[in-house]
Each structure stands twice: as C-alpha cells, then as structure tokens.
C-alpha cells in the first residue's frame, strides 16, 4: 500500500501543524538537530512551460509560459511540442533524506488525432519520455491571462520577455545550446499510453532514474533544472498528448489538474 500522504519531520520542541498547498501536513517540533523520518509528499509544479519547434526543427517564435496546457508530440502540421517542468522540491523534501520512490502525475487535457472520434485511435500507442534538463530556464508570462480551455493554445503565444522557447531559455537573453532544450541524451523514465485515451486520465511516470534525479537535486539544489517531456512521435503528425499546467488548473479552480510529483523518502 502507498503510505499515507503525510510528511513527518521532527525538528524540535514546538509542534505545529501546517496544511500546505496539496494537503500535505508538516509536523514541526523545535527540539535539537533535525532528524528526518520516513515521509512522503505530493509536490506541485513550480514552473511549467511548452516550447515549439517547426517541422524542420527551428524555433516557431512562440512560447507558452502561462498557457493552460503543455504538450508532447506533433500537431497536424508537424510542428513539434515539448514540455518543461520543475517541482517545488525544496519546500517539501527534508534535507538529508534518502529518496525511495518518485512518481510524476500529469492530467491529460487534450489528445491529438480525433479523426475517428477523439480517442486518439490514429496512433493508439504513444511513448513519452522524460529527460534531465541541464540548463536553467525561465517560465515567462506568455499566454497570460491563462485560458480555461486548451483548444487553440497548442501553437503557443507571441513570445515575451522572460519566456523560454525552442531557442531561448530566457527571452531575449540566454539561449539553449541546442534547439529544443538541453537535456541528457539518455532518458530517465518513459511510459507508453494506449487507447482509449480519455481527457482527465492521469498519466504517470515512475522510475529509478527519477529517484536518482530527485536525490541528486535534494543534495545539490543549484543543479535542479527539471525535466523535459518529449514524445517518441514528435515527427509524426497529429501525435501530441497535452496535460494541464498549474496555470490551467488555477484557471479552472481545480488544483487536482496540476502536475504533481509524488515522492517518498526515509
């Protein structure tokens, strides 16, 4: 069984109970040195964005820092979409713990390939891989105010100062070394989703590679740049899957839509 979604962190004498954003409870005792016990948390994304490449691999010039969704795959015109995400690890995971399990949950909001009815039957199996980003990036504000609906946002928005894009990590300043973001070539997790897809379905990734990444980031927060989410089918037309972002969740007043990282540790 999955442990109760409760963090337990004993630090000292005074016990307080604070309900955090995702309902995680943090018990704090102000007594002596920090001693960390087994715990778990559902950690919300702190930054999420979508970036857009042309079929030829160039930057489309658009961005989606505050869009309601983030896609992985290609649209009908073969424009490529990738997603970037970081989670609020520092606020939830105590220092010095050993990470046991990591699972990223994204809620499906849109499925490309509705030619025969919206269940994505044109490409009944879609593998989405997660990669370790190696360069810092900025979420930006394109797409603000965020739409409640995803339709029509899949080409992104006119890029604005501070956005990340296919080319820029922070428009109009620093850039990726590689178009489409900088990530380690070897993925750290993958998952294959099959029809019938349904909006509202939770897509999850969980692997030992993700455990290693989070462990490393807890030990060395400055190296934390998050993950890139990329489809095997990004050169295949009408292949994308799209998931709600934090901004999309907020726009619909439904925190259950936001990207969540479930972490367990001891």
């Amino acid at each position, binding site marked *: *069984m*999955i442990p109760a979604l409760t963090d337990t962190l004993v630090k000292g004498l005074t016990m307080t109970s604070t309900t955090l954003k995702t309902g995680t409870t943090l018990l704090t005792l102000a007594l002596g040195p920090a001693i960390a016990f087994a715990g778990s948390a559902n950690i919300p994304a702190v930054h999420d964005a979508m970036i857009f490449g042309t079929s030829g691999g160039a930057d489309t010039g658009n961005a989606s820092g505050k869009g309601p969704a983030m896609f992985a795959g290609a649209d*009908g*015109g073969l424009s490529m979409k990738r997603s970037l995400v970081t989670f609020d690890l520092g606020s939830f995971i105590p220092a010095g713990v050993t990470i046991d*399990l*990591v*699972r990223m*949950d994204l*809620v499906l*909001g*849109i499925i*490309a*390939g*509705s*030619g*025969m*009815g*919206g*269940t994505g*039957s*044109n490409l009944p199996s879609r593998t989405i*891989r997660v990669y370790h980003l190696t360069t810092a990036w900025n979420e930006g504000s394109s797409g603000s105010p965020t*739409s*409640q*609906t995803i*339709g*029509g*946002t*899949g*080409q992104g928005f006119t890029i604005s100062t501070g956005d990340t894009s296919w080319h820029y990590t922070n428009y109009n300043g620093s850039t990726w070394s590689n178009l489409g973001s900088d990530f380690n070539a070897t*993925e*750290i*997790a*993958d*998952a*294959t989703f099959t*029809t*019938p897809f*349904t*909006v*509202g*379905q*939770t*897509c*999850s*990734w*969980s*692997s*030992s*590679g*993700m455990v290693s990444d989070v462990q490393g980031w807890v030990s060395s927060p400055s190296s934390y740049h998050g993950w890139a989410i990329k489809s095997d089918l990004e050169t295949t*037309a*009408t292949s994308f899957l799209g998931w*709600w972002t934090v901004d999309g969740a907020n726009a*619909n*007043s*439904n925190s*259950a*839509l936001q990207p969540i990282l*479930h972490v367990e540790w001891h």
Partner: protein
Amino acid sequence: MRTSILRISALSFIFACNAKPITEGEPGTVRGVAVQHNVTEHGIVDQPRDLSAATFGPDGRPGAGGADGSFAFPAGDWLEMKLGGERTFLPAGASAPDLSYYRFGRGDLTFPTAATSVAFDISSLGNWQAGDSLQIVVPNAGVTMEGPETMLAAPPTAGATAIGGQFDWTSNQAPILDAARGDTTWVAQMAVNATDDGRTYYRALTRAGVARGFTVVDGQAATLSVALAPVAQPRALTLRWKGSEFAALAAQAGPGARPAAAPALAIRALPEALAQHSSLFSRLYGALPTLVELGPVSGSEDIDQTVAFGDPFGSTGAAWTEFVTVVYPVPVAVQTAQGNASLTAMMVAAVPVSALVDGVIAPPLSPVRQPRIAGAPLDSARAGVGTSPTLTWQPPEIGTSTSYRVAVYALDASSLGVHATRIATLDTTATSLQISASVLSPGGSYVVAITAVAGDGVDLAARPFSASLPYASADFVSAVITP
C-alpha cells in the same frame, strides 16, 4: 425529416441463413458465424465479419476464422481467441458465443495513402471565442472529428465568423468520404460558456451546417465549404453532477486509488440502432458526436449546471438518441519494488437523457467487493498464487452487474519504469473464475483488473462485443500478483 431504419442485406443467401452463431454437433468444436452490422444513415447494412486474421484456440490446438465470418473454437474449459494482439477467453457454454457487432457507419471505408489537403471555407460562424471548437461529423461513415481547427497553422481569431486554412486529411487518419455514396458531412461550432459558478466551462453545439457534396479523393485537394446556421436548442437539462459520490467510491477501485482529477462529462448523440447494440463501450463512448461537453469538472465536488441543447444530426437520416456519458478515471498506482506501475480504473456510465432522473449523475455501479485470489484479498501483493489461480469477488454494492470482465496485465520493470501490458481478458457472468493455465508464467508479475458491467441484457460472456444503453461499468485494479 426522419426516415426509418431499413435493414439491407448485402449478403449471400447462404450467409443470410447462417447469420446466427450456431453450435454444430461435431465433438470438440464450437462453430458459429459473426456478422458486422453497419449502421449507416440509410439503414443497417450487414456483412460478414472478417475473422480471417483472428486465431481461435490455444497454441497447438488451432481453430479457424474466415473472411465469411465463420469461426471454429476447439472446445475446452475456455474458448480462446486472439482478434488483435490480445487473448480473449470466453466460457465454454452450451452454444457458440455471438461474435457479431454493430458498427457506426458504413463498413467499406478506405483511407487516403497520399497527402490529401483539405481547405476550410467555413462561414457564418457565431463570433469565435477562445475555447470554441469545431466538430466534423459524417454519420454515414461513422466519423466524428473533434477540434479540427487545432490542426490549422493558426487558430481562429477572437470574433472571427469565418475559418480558412488547410490541413492534411491523411495525417488525421480520416477516411475517404464520398457524397455520391451518401456521406453527409456536418460541420458544427461548439460555443464555449462559463459554468454558473464560474469555475470552469462547457461547450454546446450551437451552429451547424452541411457541406454539400463534400468528397475526399485520395491524394487530391478538396475544399470543405459550408455556411453554418443556428441549431435550435429545444431541450434543457440541469446536470446534477455528484462528484462527491464518485469520489467516495474511488478507494474501492484498488489499493492506493485516488479520486479522478477531472472526469469527462458530456451529452452525446448516436443513431438509435446503436443505443440497442454496440461495442462503443470499449472506446468509452468517446468517438461520437457531442452536443454538450463540460470542462474539467471536479472529480470530488458536486456541481449543478443547466444546459440547453439540440441535436441536428437526426434531421437527415435515421432517428438518433441523446445520452449522457461519464468517464471517471481513477488513478491506481500499483507499487512494485522498481517503482509505481500506473493503471487507470474507469467508472463509466452512458445513460439516455430520457432515463436520467432529475438530471442526477451519480454512480450507477460500484466496483466489485472483496476481490480475492486463491482466497487472499487482492488489495495487497500476493506471491505464490500459481499459474491458474481462482479469482472470486462479490457483486458491487451499488447497481446490478450483468457481466464481469477480467483483464490480466503483465508488468515489465526496468530502470525507466514499470510498464503494464494487457495480455488477456476473460469474460464471465459468474462471481469467480479460474484463470486459464496458459496466461500466467512462473516468474512473471501481473495485475488483474475486474470490471463489473451493467446493462439490460448485457452478457459479455455470450456477446462480448455488444451492449445496450443504459450501460455502466466499474473497474477494480489489484495489487501485484506473482505465480
């Protein structure tokens, strides 16, 4: 204008005489003939179900399937067949199972193989708002294309009353359409509205039109030209969504199961004949024309929303039925030593609008109770269950199930994750079954999902591809089992 459904026989005399599955007296063999009933705008057209690519019987005891719909099972404890990549087991009964099914649209569709550019010339839209969407519906071909405007290089602009642009029909896996063969292509505008509480939105089909003569020829450019007109909205329905009641059942869907983040809730439409028989449940009723769809409603909270709607599609052909569909996806994180294997337990309901009581949308069926394997509860990992264990369960607390479907998933763990692949399904009307000895392998790790199914006359063990409305199902997903 509505016309009655005509049944058109396109079959030979011999086939027509054998349209019902039969069991012949030959010892050790169960024989039958399967029919594909194509529900078109112009009647139901029957044809043999092509089973030539299917296999029947376990390895070493092969049966046969034919292009003429004939099949022959070697008799055994289970009747085993493989229609795709997955093995299906039906109980060996007194007669052959009915492998026939009803299909939405004609049965002779072909698909373009070359790039086939379709240009939009859609006019007389209502002022386009962010969040609006188009829908292309071709009932004679069974096609529903949701959001085709998302395939355009640039989305429609706010306030637009016309949409141009083009996209490749081929890349969307849409079929060849032929007006000369009776294909009537509808284009509809789904207009977005905020829900009364302002928290989310819904879309309603408010304008539609027929693209007269629209035909797609493989490799040739075509233009989808249509002027939309308002669709009468003569019906109003207050949807009383009981998310809290669905959420209360989530824990019954498996160990660690959580309420759905955003269940899918819609009013859809389909030809009346498909309300009586269809295999659309296997696609979660997601491939049908939509009259109203709600945005991401809460999976845990209740909401009341009054919607007005109209159904233009029945105006040119057979009678249609409007029905509410709910797909409530419950994430179940199956814990393994290598990480979580994520499966989704679905609670599904498809209820004709006319059968809704006061608009209340509450769970019509809950998952099975007390699921066990070899006598041990399935909500904890179980090792040493053997390669042919017996599963038992109790009927759901809510609703009356008429069938059960057990799916077996094989788990494959690597450093990149734990992947679950469905390898077999077994249908029964009983509350227990013994998994066929050839499904589980020593050393493997598996998960089983037990689906309770409810519907008038729905018997998946005898008719695995047919269910009527109202329909409901609820899954239970187990913890890991190892033989």
